[in-house]
């Protein structure tokens, strides 16, 4: 083996001596193109600095970012606790919903009370008018006048009564009939209000604290409407009273006029005798 290697080495050395330029070129190329060696963690100063830098960054992140976030978290947690325990406690919200449910039961009883039949007339004419007046159906209003006239009669003809009396009778009949018709309307409106109030109460049962005020606003609007209807009914009652007072006053005036006529008639009668 040794005998084989030694001649090869001798020939290589000889070739190298003869081709110095080529060898120098090859060595240069080898040095220039040789891949870089990997850098060790412990021996390279760059890695140490990098580690120190990363450690500093980590510490800063822990102190500045972590500490800041922890402070924010603690404030947020206290806000969350406050909201859950003081502002929107689930237990009290459920309790309020349950109360609304029980109120709904109470209001069903009230609604049932308003539906009770109170008819009391016994004769056909009065039964017909009473049925019409208690119908709570606005489409029945067209029949009110006929039922009214059947019971209370119509305005006397021009040959049967003076024009003053006929005016008085007609106005009083009109006021009475209008009031009866308005009573049918008001009954019907009140039924619709009760229905709407029931719907709102049912919605409140399924509402959230954030949506309940919207329902409250809706209920407020209905309350304003209901107040307006109450005022309309009160206005009609006042109109009826006003007509009634005017009626009494007219009777007084007509009485005075009749007395004057009677006096004149008696004077004429005495003069003839």
């Amino acid at each position: 083996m040794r005998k084989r290697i030694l001649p090869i080495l001798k020939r290589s050395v000889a070739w190298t001596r003869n081709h110095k330029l080529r060898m120098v070129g090859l060595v240069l190329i080898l040095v220039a193109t040789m891949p870089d060696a990997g850098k060790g963690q412990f021996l390279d100063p760059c890695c140490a600095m990098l580690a120190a830098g990363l450690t500093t960054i980590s510490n800063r992140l822990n102190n500045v970012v972590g500490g800041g976030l922890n402070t924010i978290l603690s404030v947020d947690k206290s806000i969350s606790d406050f909201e859950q325990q003081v502002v929107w406690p689930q237990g009290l919200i459920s309790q309020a919903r349950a109360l609304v449910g029980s109120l709904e039961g109470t209001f069903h009883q009230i609604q049932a009370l308003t539906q009770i039949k109170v008819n009391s007339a016994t004769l056909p004419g009065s039964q017909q008018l009473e049925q019409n007046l208690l119908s709570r159906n606005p489409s029945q209003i067209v029949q009110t006048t006929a039922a009214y006239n059947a019971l209370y009669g119509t305005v006397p003809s021009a040959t049967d009564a003076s024009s003053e009396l006929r005016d008085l009778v007609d106005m009083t009949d009109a006021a009475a009939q209008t009031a009866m018709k308005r009573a049918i309307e008001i009954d019907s409106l009140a039924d619709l209000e009760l229905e709407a109030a029931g719907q709102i109460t049912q919605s409140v049962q399924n509402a959230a604290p954030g949506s309940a005020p919207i329902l409250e606003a809706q209920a407020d609007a209905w309350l304003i409407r209901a107040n307006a209807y109450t005022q309309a009914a009160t206005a009609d009652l006042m109109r009826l009273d006003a007509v009634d007072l005017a009626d009494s006053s007219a009777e007084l005036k007509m009485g005075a006029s009749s007395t004057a006529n009677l006096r004149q008639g008696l004077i004429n009668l005495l003069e003839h005798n």
Partner: protein
Amino acid sequence: MRLAVYVGYLTLFSLFAWFVTNLGRRRQVVAAVIAALLLIHLAAPPPAAAQGGLIAAVQAVLKVINGAIEIALNGINNVRAAVRNLYRSVAWPVELIAQARAEALQMIGQYRNLMASILNVNLKSATLPAPRALESLIRDHRINNFTSLGQAFANTYRAIPAPADASPEDRAMADMDDALVLDNLKTLKAADGATDLELQAADSVENAASQAAPGSAPFLTAAATASSVRSQALTQKMLAAELRQEAARMAHRNELRKRGATFTLQLRGVLINLLQHN
């Protein structure tokens, strides 16, 4: 991966070395070497960053952490703390919430029983048996004794006259008057019952208010407002009954006036006939 790079490199370098060692002329060798060096120079990757760049990068990151991030976090923290203070001291101060609850309880104690006792004062004033029975029935807040009410009413105000005892007009009007009176008395019995229920509902809402939270109170206010709508509806029904009753009273009086006109006409005819006969 790294082994593959080394193997590839050795293979290529061996080929190149063979090529160089087998060139004939010196100039060709020089040219080949220069060409190879130029190619290597052109293809070589850029040098790695120096240590000074790394330090600057770390300092830049630290600057961002100590500057922008710290300022932002402090700002967020301040805002959240301000929100918490706003909630606790302005929007929902616990002391004022407790005070409102206590006030509700105090008002319950102060007014509820007093007002109930005022409303329940005995108003009955009739002295004779029939009126006493009727008075008791019209004030008992019950709706299951309408028949008794009708009987007590007839006992006090008497029944409609028999056909032989009164004209059909008088009988009809009396029947209508009585009917509307009874309708209203029945309506009022039902309304009294409804009033009792409304008062119960008001008590319930007030009880709940004394324990409510700001987040549960809107449920109570919405329900209470809906109750107010119902209350208005009941008031309207009572007004409607009042309208019917007043209208009937006026119609009755007007009917008497119409009949008066007829009687006057008839009387005038009788008097004329009488005078003519004389």
